[in-house]
């Protein structure tokens, strides 16, 4: 029980009469890499926004790092890191200034920020670019720095929202190595993606279709269960199978987010 | 975006034209009557009857009056001294105190003229009533002035402002949109895409600007329609001439927009810089305040202001019916301006890409 860093029960979010997230229930264990999969518009981002406290659930319960996201949002915030799909850093600030700023808003001491920065410069080989404006850097660099920045305050859990959009396969590979490293050091990683090959890298994955979690297990078991070659096939089979939430058939709603 | 481009400016044309007036009326007026005579009452009655003055109240003392003026409740205070009537009859001369809030200097001057006019009429009236044979020693000479207001006999302010505001709107919209347009492509990254196609720079720029040119003329058309239908502004001159001049003028504005676009990196910067120059151009255009009153050096600066020419031409052609030969100097200068600005724009575009 205490091993779960995320516990979600019947979490629901509706916008008017559209149900974006429909009573989902799952747990994430400490140190796990948890893949949160789904097509565009399946409700992944909405579900994640509720977990990180910037969207209020319509009903249901969710605990993150032992705190209720509904009633203790502020305690949750100190324990989590977040990286958005835009790799949001400030373009008109240098790499160093971005690190100092984000360290600062999480309340790290000046000394700690300094240490962290040296560590990052060392690990990522940032020496030549640490004083450059972020706006001038290639996307791959921004992505790596944004991820490191989200880990600055050593959060228990880090939420990554489609962290690999728009970068090349080699950079994606390197990025996953960073994720493994973070998980190895005990950080729980909650990652949304729609690249099915990336799902193979996760310890466990859940697949959302039309606001519901339709499958949740390790990639290996899921492949067995659906008798599929790879995760891509699993996903296609799931998305095409008739679903009780769909009234008129078998297509995935892709235009709502 | 489309409603902002068309609807907002037109609402503004309607509202601004009503708001932008230097006419002085409804002057907040109060008096102190220390005389309480039939003469003082007759004088106050004159102010009551005038449409310029809004007689608010009377004060028992000067202290009360100046407090009210400090609060901004009244702008003009007339003080009738004790024995006003007696003085007038005895020494044949009397004094009146007039206090005017002069923070708006120009308005204060006009208010003073109105007060003086009323007092003079009253004076004439008194003379006729009180004049005795002994006073008829000799007859003074009078110069009669006949003021004639040509082109706008009723001094309708809207006739003056509507053509000017029309200029303002055509200029603002085309400048902002063209200024932001290319920067936007820069920001989004589509400019690079276009730069790799075999299209020539000149073709590209013409292709970019043509829609705004059409848009500008469209705005002019709608504006003129409103001017005619809602404000009933006389259109004495030739419509064709207005369109001819405007079509050259928009080229100048587009050239400036493009030039700004080439030297900025973000839409925000482009917007700011356009706004900065817009404000200076507008203030120096003679739209609200007369250019002739500016000092010489400032008048020389206005020679470089395209808005000035547009305002002049619109007012000349629309209200006075000036012909092509009358506006030839403006046409030549505008044409020259258009050539220079667009030349600079094309040149700087090559440089930066």
């Amino acid at each position, binding site marked *: 029980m205490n091993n779960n860093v995320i516990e979600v029960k019947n979490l629901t979010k509706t916008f008017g009469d559209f149900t974006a997230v429909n009573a989902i229930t799952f747990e994430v264990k400490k140190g796990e890499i948890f893949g949160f999969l789904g097509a565009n518009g399946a409700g992944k981002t909405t579900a994640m926004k509720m977990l990180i406290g910037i969207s209020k659930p319509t009903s249901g319960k969710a605990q993150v790092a032992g705190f209720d996201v509904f009633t203790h949002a502020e305690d949750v915030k100190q324990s989590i890191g977040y990286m958005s799909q835009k790799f949001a850093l400030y*373009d008109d600030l240098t790499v160093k200034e971005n690190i100092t700023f984000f360290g600062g808003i999480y309340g790290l001491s000046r000394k700690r920020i300094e240490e962290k920065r040296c560590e990052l410069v060392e690990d990522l080989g940032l020496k030549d670019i640490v004083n450059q404006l972020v706006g001038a850097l290639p996307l791959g660099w921004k992505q790596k720095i944004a991820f490191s920045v989200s880990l600055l305050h050593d959060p228990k859990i880090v939420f990554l929202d489609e962290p690999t959009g728009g970068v090349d396969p080699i950079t994606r590979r390197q990025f996953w190595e960073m994720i493994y490293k973070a998980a190895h050091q005990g950080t729980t990683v909650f990652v949304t993606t729609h690249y099915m090959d990336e799902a193979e890298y996760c310890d466990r994955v859940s697949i959302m279709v039309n606001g519901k979690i339709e499958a949740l297990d390790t990639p290996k078991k899921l492949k067995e269960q659906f008798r599929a070659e790879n995760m891509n096939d699993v996903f296609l089979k799931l998305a095409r199978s008739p679903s009780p939430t769909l009234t008129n058939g078998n297509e995935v709603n892709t235009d709502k987010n | 975006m489309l409603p902002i481009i068309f609807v907002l400016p037109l609402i503004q044309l309607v509202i601004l034209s009503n708001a932008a007036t230097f006419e002085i009326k409804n002057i907040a007026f109060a008096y102190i009557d220390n005389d309480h005579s039939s003469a003082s009452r007759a004088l106050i009655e004159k102010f009551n009857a005038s449409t310029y003055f809004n007689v608010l109240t009377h004060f028992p003392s000067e202290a009360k009056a100046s407090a009210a003026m400090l609060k901004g409740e009244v702008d003009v205070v007339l003080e009738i001294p004790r024995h006003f009537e007696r003085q007038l009859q005895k020494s044949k001369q009397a004094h009146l105190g007039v206090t005017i*809030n002069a923070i708006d200097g120009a308005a204060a001057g006009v208010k003073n003229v109105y007060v003086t006019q009323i007092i003079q009429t009253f004076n004439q009236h008194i003379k006729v009533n009180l004049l005795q044979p002994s006073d008829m020693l000799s007859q003074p000479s009078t110069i009669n002035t006949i003021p004639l207001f040509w082109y706008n006999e009723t001094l309708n302010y809207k006739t003056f402002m509507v053509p000017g505001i029309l200029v303002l709107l055509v200029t603002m919209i085309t400048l902002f949109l063209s200024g932001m347009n290319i920067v936007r492509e820069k920001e989004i990254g589509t400019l690079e895409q276009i730069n790799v196609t075999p299209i020539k720079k000149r073709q590209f720029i013409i292709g970019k600007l043509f829609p705004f040119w059409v848009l500008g003329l469209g705005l002019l058309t709608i504006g003129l329609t409103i001017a005619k239908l809602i404000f009933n502004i006389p259109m004495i001159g030739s419509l064709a001439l207005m369109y001819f001049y405007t079509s050259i003028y928009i080229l100048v504005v587009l050239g400036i927009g493009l030039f700004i676009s080439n030297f900025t990196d973000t839409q925000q910067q482009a917007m700011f810089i356009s706004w900065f120059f817009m404000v200076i151009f507008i203030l120096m255009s003679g739209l609200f305040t007369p250019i002739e009153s500016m000092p010489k050096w400032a008048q020389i600066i206005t020679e470089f202001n395209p808005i000035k020419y547009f305002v002049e031409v619109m007012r*000349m052609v629309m209200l006075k019916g000036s012909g092509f030969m009358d506006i030839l100097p403006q046409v030549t200068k505008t044409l020259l301006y258009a050539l220079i600005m667009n030349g600079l724009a094309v040149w700087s575009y090559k440089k930066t890409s």
Partner: protein
Amino acid sequence: MKRFTGFIKKEFYHIFRDRRSLFILFGMPIAQILLFGFAITNEINNVDIAILDRSNDVNTQEIIHKISASKYFSIKQIITREADIASVFEKGQVKAVLNFEKDFSQNLIKQHQATVQIITDATDPNTANTISNYVNAMLQQYQKELNKNIKIAYQIVPQTRMVYNPELKSVYMFVPGVMTIILMLVSAMMTSISITREKELGTMEILLVSPLKPFQVIIGKVFPYIFLSIINAVVIVMLSVFIFKMPVQGSLLLLALESVLFIITALALGILISTISATQQTAMMISLMGLMLPVILLSGFIFPISSMPLPLQIISNIIPAKWFIIIIKGIMLKGVGIGFIWKETLILLGMTVFFIGLSVKKYKIRLE
């Protein structure tokens, strides 16, 4: 607190890295004050006029001489035919034509009266009216000189006192307006743009996920602009005092406090705009079209509110700038204390609370 200072430091980086915007931010007030102080005036000066003198005698010569000697008029042209009047107006060369009747002097002597027409180009009605009044006043003066040997009976002499601005300088009128516009521009427009920029870039989300509270984020974003606005206000007041010799009759402290209040009102408006617009472009358009023009036109900055049609007079009451202009004029030119402007101050305070309340409400909705 440390988190907060880091945040403000970052805001200043944003502002100082954007050199062009910074230039506009500080260049604008200086350029505007100088233009209004030196170049722009709604008085008349050196107006070009033409003369049609069919009498050409002693009196007309004296009058023409008097007029050309004044600083208000310069005689650009002498025309000889009535038909030329229309053509000089159409070319836009002169604003007025003085048309003396035939035998002006003789009429004056024989019939004790003579007539002159003041024909003005009334496409600009305000200037036309002023010119007409000025020429008239000069003729009256001349007439007085003619009659100086005759004692005129029953004369009422008004003694006019121009208070608060005895020299009728138009810069006194413009400074409060320019100050209001600049503070509005810097505070409302800049903040609304800078907040929406964070939304567009996606950094706002990151900030909301961090332990910083939403109100800390907003205060952190607007704080630097309070600072910049205060600098601008100080620059404007210094320019007007030292270059244009404009007085500050009232308390400087009160002026400073009222300015800070207005800056906060404008910032609250800026925050409100940022909560209702998703992109920088929308925020800019709302600020420029919806804010700047009403501020310029309906606040009494240039055009007197009392002369506007009633509906516009009513609308002008909801424009914060109107009240601030009354306050500055009161403090700087009339030298009044809070006793005279408490009502305006309360209105500004009320508006500020209203804008903040509304943005808090809107802001919450966005987070639902």
